[in-house]
């Protein structure tokens, strides 16, 4: 483990401990009330999900065209994180929606496209696990298409009339909400960076073990 890991872990823990306090102090939203506070974890998770999908796509493209194994390891780590944070988004969203819109789910453009993008990365994990030899390249192709999805998902809420709020909400947050929101966003980003590094390192150790197996068999 790198020397700086413990410091960042501590920082992440501190941020996440303070976050609920900040969220509790934030003003209530006029129409949605208390349940709107899910926003402070829902949107940063979505931001991380998009970032992770993007990183996975770029790393996969690098792996496909330059055949660099480190790129493949980062892609595998980023795909798993996309699924994890996507799961958070897809569960906290409906919990909020139940109160704000009266329904758990609605097949509008944003929700549908997010679910599909999440499924692309779930399929990535499935194909890596069960695809047999050469599955890394199959997954990489999936990730490239998944990455192409990201701008589409983001913009879907502006192009179509959806029940999901538009992207104008975040830039126009009031000062009382801005603080906790960006605090949580930074906390999530930091956590994401850490998880990505750790998970990629796990992949690296696995590759090292494979290498050792080959050496052990040789002798």
């Amino acid at each position: 483990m790198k020397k700086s890991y413990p410091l960042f872990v501590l920082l992440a823990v501190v941020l996440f401990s303070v976050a609920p306090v900040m969220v509790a102090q934030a003003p209530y939203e006029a129409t949605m009330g208390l349940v709107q506070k899910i926003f402070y974890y829902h949107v940063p998770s979505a931001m991380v999900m998009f970032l992770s999908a993007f990183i996975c796509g770029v790393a996969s493209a690098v792996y496909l065209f330059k055949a660099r194994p480190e790129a493949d390891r980062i892609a595998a780590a980023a795909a798993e994180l996309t699924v994890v944070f996507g799961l958070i988004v897809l569960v906290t969203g409906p919990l909020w929606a139940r109160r704000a819109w009266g329904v758990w789910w609605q097949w509008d453009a944003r929700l549908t496209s997010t679910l599909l993008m999440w499924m692309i990365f779930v399929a990535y994990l499935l194909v890596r696990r069960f695809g047999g030899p050469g599955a890394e390249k199959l997954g990489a192709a999936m990730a490239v298409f998944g990455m192409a999805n990201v701008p589409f998902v983001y913009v879907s809420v502006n192009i179509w009339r959806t029940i999901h709020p538009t992207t104008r909400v975040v830039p126009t947050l009031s000062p009382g909400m801005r603080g906790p929101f960006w605090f949580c966003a930074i906390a999530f980003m930091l956590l994401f960076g850490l998880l990505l590094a750790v998970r990629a390192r796990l992949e690296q150790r696995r590759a090292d073990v494979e290498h050792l197996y080959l050496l052990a068999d040789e002798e």
Partner: protein
Amino acid sequence: MHRVTMMKLTTWMIALWLVGMSGASLVAQAGAPGATPAAAGQAVGQEPQDQFVPVKSLPQQDQLPASTLLITAYGFVWAVLLVYLWTIWRRLVKVEREMQELSAKIGEKSARR
């Protein structure tokens, strides 16, 4: 040569799309001036929110039922992250153990020689 072909193809594609999109939008606008993609989405009778409007405190009846949802949401986030961290930890431990076993085995073999 193949790279040049790819770039040419991509440029053709983009050009075709631009032409197609402008054509389609011109036709669409000529057809019905008021047409928007609105009807294509779900007509729920609600405008999507553009802004979050803050207030200082809530009317009493809105507070209790929402708190279950809020706590479940936050709890879920924490649970997922902790479970995920635990799975990484478990896999890392397993891999480190395999590493050690293999290193020991290789060490033995080369010592024997």
